[in-house]
């Protein structure tokens, strides 16, 4: 079991460019989460899928952030027109079901210049 796989590990974009982050959850896990980690805010919830269906996107900045889960083996987080304040580590996690352990990927460090 390779765990949750996130690519790329690091991404640098210029202000206004688009960034797409990829996540491959653990096989058999029905829940997939995206979190953003910064020193100031800690771990902020962004969005959550269960059985590929979007359940809660209350943490997503509405205008520029979007997330998809086209199949059970991957999810993407897309940030349009990136801004310096989007710089953070974006963590994907999956769990077998509600109340179960969340397994995190190593994250994608996004730097917006």
């Amino acid at each position: 079991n390779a765990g949750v796989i996130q690519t790329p590990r690091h991404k640098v974009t210029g202000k206004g460019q688009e960034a797409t982050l990829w996540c491959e959850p653990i096989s058999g896990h029905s829940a997939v989460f995206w979190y953003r980690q910064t020193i100031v805010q800690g771990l902020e919830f962004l969005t959550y899928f269960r059985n590929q269906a979007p359940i809660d996107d209350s943490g997503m900045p509405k205008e520029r952030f979007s997330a998809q889960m086209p199949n059970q083996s991957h999810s993407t987080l897309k940030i349009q027109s990136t801004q310096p304040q989007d710089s953070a580590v974006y963590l994907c996690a999956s769990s077998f079901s509600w109340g179960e352990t969340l397994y995190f990927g190593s994250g994608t460090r996004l730097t917006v210049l």
Partner: protein
Amino acid sequence: GDSVTQTEGLVTLTEGLPVMLNCTYQSTYSPFLFWYVQHLNEAPKLLLKSFTDNKRPEHQGFHATLHKSSSSFHLQKSSAQLSDSALYYCALSANTGANTGKLTFGHGTILRVHP
């Protein structure tokens, strides 16, 4: 909505002394409580999870007791080790119907253990 409060941003201890990291929560529903630990340059990983039958979870010398009356789930260890230095997150997951499964994290507490 659900929230988790960790009052200490940084706790510095001498090796061998007891550890206590505070965690309180607010939730309309009876949640599961978790402690996650993140070592430098690593992903967060589960340290402890509350049980539904009031048993006290323990792992790697750490334990935590869920007190519903005070809405707390403090993390404790009798003797700190240098390797315990890390960032610790308290989190809750509540059965809220449509939003079941969402994990809400506190801001985290950095534990630094020195010789």
